[in-house]
């Protein structure tokens, strides 16, 4: 090969690099290891984590069972090792599954258009807010304090240099739900969108219809956020929202300490050209057969550059495929039954604990820890190989001695009873 190039040694290919840029020593990285040693290293790291503990953490990341079919499908090299499907003739596999994904997200959310995925729920939120700015020509964003605190932090990071002032409105202290009076007092003619989450960060199911009415009365859009996708198996979809920004981690995506997950943005057809990220559309090939391809690319950075709707390029396609397989395997009845089981487990546990809020909830709720701090209760639970809930004063200083607990279909009754016992002590 070197002679074909006209070189005598490999290093010749780098002779044009100026001397001052060259690295004249080996990288300080250990020599290559065998496959066995690599597996052994990561097994040991896995053992150092909370292996074998039952967990009642939710707060945006949920422990749901992953059907075996999910990894079977995404491990196929044809899906795993393919690129973004720009060459439609040899990417119909990926394109068809994305088209099915977009369709299922619409069915799930009551929207008319969904994109091919965003990085995660937290980054979908500011992208939805920026979209609302483009649609309304207004710049102010009002976000509920019951939206996931880390999603709100990401929103602030994105908003800071876009002339997009963000302010918050509160929740009702008794119910844990949106404070609609506070919202009414803060919304104005400059408000592009209000952002709510349901079930909210406290697990409470919000009144989407009322929030939408307030938004629309003032000419603003309603952005609906979800972090627990399984809830949509049972809950009324947010048909009154204008944009839905969500997180699909619950759909067979391993927690992996927080990522990779898959976000989505879905909306009404009339806003389709303002949506960020990739879209797959249906068309025909020259023989007249149905075919799919990436479409409306003039919104995207590789065509529109500084005028693009977003800078997003790489998305979360394979993770979205996991969610697609999950939705297929459970299907219409299965997802509903799964949601029912989550509801039943959470309400079994909540019935034995002092509840902080009175609003309706799905599989997550806030419990009071009484005279003990949440950390003290969690310490007692750790002694029983149980990871308890999230101490809420981490994000809400006013919610001392409370924790956010989540029960899913994977929470066994014996462990639910064990949590109740520790609370009762």
């Amino acid at each position, binding site marked *: 090969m070197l002679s074909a190039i006209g070189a005598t040694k490999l290093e010749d290919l780098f002779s044009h690099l100026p001397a001052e840029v060259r690295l004249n020593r*080996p*990288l300080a990285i250990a020599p290559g290891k065998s496959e066995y040693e690599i597996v052994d290293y990561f*097994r040991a790291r896995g053992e150092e984590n*909370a292996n074998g503990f039952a967990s009642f953490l939710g707060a945006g990341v949920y422990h749901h069972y992953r059907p075996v079919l999910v990894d079977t499908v995404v491990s196929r090299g044809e899906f795993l090792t393919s690129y973004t499907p720009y*060459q439609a003739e*040899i990417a119909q596999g990926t394109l*068809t599954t994305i088209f099915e994904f977009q369709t299922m997200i619409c069915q799930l959310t009551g929207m008319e258009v969904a994109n091919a995925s965003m990085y995660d729920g937290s980054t979908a939120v500011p992208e939805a807010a920026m979209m609302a700015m483009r649609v309304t020509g207004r710049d102010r964003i009002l976000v509920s304090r019951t939206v996931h605190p880390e999603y709100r932090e990401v929103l602030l990071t994105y908003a800071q240099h876009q002339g997009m002032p963000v302010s918050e409105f509160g929740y009702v202290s008794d119910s844990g739900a949106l404070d609609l009076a506070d919202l009414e007092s803060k919304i104005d003619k400059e408000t592009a969108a209000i952002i709510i989450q349901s079930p909210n960060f406290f697990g409470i199911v919000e009144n989407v219809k009322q929030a939408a009415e307030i938004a629309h009365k003032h000419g603003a859009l309603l952005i609906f956020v979800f972090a627990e996708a399984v809830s949509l198996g049972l809950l009324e979809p947010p048909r009154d929202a204008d944009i839905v920004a969500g997180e699909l981690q619950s759909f067979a995506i391993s927690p992996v*300490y*927080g990522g990779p997950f898959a976000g989505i943005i879905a909306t009404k057809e009339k806003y389709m050209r303002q949506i960020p990220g990739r879209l797959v559309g249906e068309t025909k090939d020259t023989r007249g057969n149905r075919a799919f391809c990436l479409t409306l690319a003039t919104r995207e950075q590789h065509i529109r550059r500084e005028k693009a709707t977003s800078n997003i*390029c790489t998305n979360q396609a394979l993770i979205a495929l996991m969610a697609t397989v999950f939705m297929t395997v459970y299907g219409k009845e299965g997802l509903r039954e799964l949601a029912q089981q989550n509801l039943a487990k959470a309400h079994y546990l909540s019935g034995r604990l002092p509840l902080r809020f009175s609003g309706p909830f799905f599989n997550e709720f806030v419990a009071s820890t009484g005279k003990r701090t949440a950390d003290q209760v969690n310490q007692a639970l750790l002694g029983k190989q149980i990871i308890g809930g999230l101490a809420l004063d981490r994000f809400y200083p006013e919610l001392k001695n409370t924790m956010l607990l989540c029960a899913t279909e994977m929470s066994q009754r014996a462990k639910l009873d064990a949590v109740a016992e520790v609370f009762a002590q």
Partner: protein
Amino acid sequence: MIKKVRQHINQNEPLLFENSSPGKRGYQLPPLDVPTVDAASVLGAANTRAEIEGFPEVSEVEAIRHFTRLSTQNYAIDLGLYPLGSCTMKYNPRVNEQVARIEGLAWAHPYQPESLSQGILEVMGTLETILAEITGMDAVTLQPAAGAHGEFTGILMIRALLEAQGNPRKKLLIPDSAHGTNPATATMAGYKVENIKSNDRGMVDVESLARAVDEDVAALMITNPNTLGVFEENITRIAEILHAKGAQVYMDGANMNALVGVARPGDFGIDVMHLNLHKTFSTPHGGGGPGSGPVAVKKHLIPFLPTPRLERTADRWTWNYDRPQSVGRVRAFYGNIGMHIRALAYIMAHGGDGLRNATLDAVLNANYIRALIQPYYDLPHQAPTMHECVFSDERQTKQGVHTGDIAKRLIDYGFHPYTVSFPLIVHGAMMIEPTETESKAELDLFVDALISIAAEIDQNPELVLKAPHHTRTTRVDEVTAARKPIVRWKP
């Protein structure tokens, strides 16, 4: 002659929704061990839905056949050379997939106690240290989810630094050969874009750059090697010009596969850069993602890194949230950790020497293709090739055949096309990046295919204009797809 492929059976498959029958499902839940709850009474009837209209109803066998049949309609790295320029389609080692699924790692919850997360934090801390060594930078954040997300993070940090010095400035300089994400990122960070022209060697023109740099310039965003596969030989001088005016240098690390173990951006004047773990460090592209876009910085930018920062105390890893100058969070939790695990596994398998050898092989393969194809296609820029080479369709356009047609004809020969019509500065660009993965045998098949296509264009351009001929799906009508968008199935 087409050597790599023959036609074979490829089954038709309807959409899931067209295949559904009421009551079918592919999964059985265990019996509920707690009392059932009436959803309408605890959630409110108005809050519950009757059913998910239109959702699929198929059996397990139908589900697996559906996805398996569809998978056979994809090209993939596992099937052969995937020469997309600037995409670095290299082999994705399967051990990476295995270790990312180890239970203690895959099931770690981001809010579980730090004392029960030391294993995963050790993986992240180790990867940060190694990426700093590879790039010659002082610190790394693993939080960004992809390359463009890393760009956004890096530019926010530059802005925060300049703001702390009293003036965030107004614009970013971006060479005309840059990826589209660069200017899109600039806008998201509140900067105007000024394009910098390349010279006839395909490099940033130092004189015109010097004229463009003034007190309004926040930074230069440069890709090195650039999208022509050319190393910016004046990079040190370029960095000096920016620094002399108080501006920063951002490097898009998409093409880092040409440099690992050979040259380090931290040693040639770069202040901040991102890496694409899904390019240089072998994590799979998965049909479009997920990626991971770690950002590496020099010391003066450390205070501005995203929150939280992973830190090592005497005996353990811990997250530090007390960072008053930070640009904030760019995503929830700590990043695409599953990709960090895979990248570290790749690095461990290679070791320092192996990583450098991969770079040498990647550059060797690109130069081999360039040398063998050059007699048949126009090579507009003669500067030395690093990891990719960019040809032009100039000779073939005389027969009415364009880069997109040649790309489609390559499919008939059993190859995925190269990157088409990018970079924009080359008319009819054919951008080829073979990576170190490919053997001489696979490269020779590819070269033969391109040479054969060049002959076809001379003899029978129609054959190429109507390609591909052997695929189950022929050329698709993208114009109608965009004009009358159908983006979901309806009954």
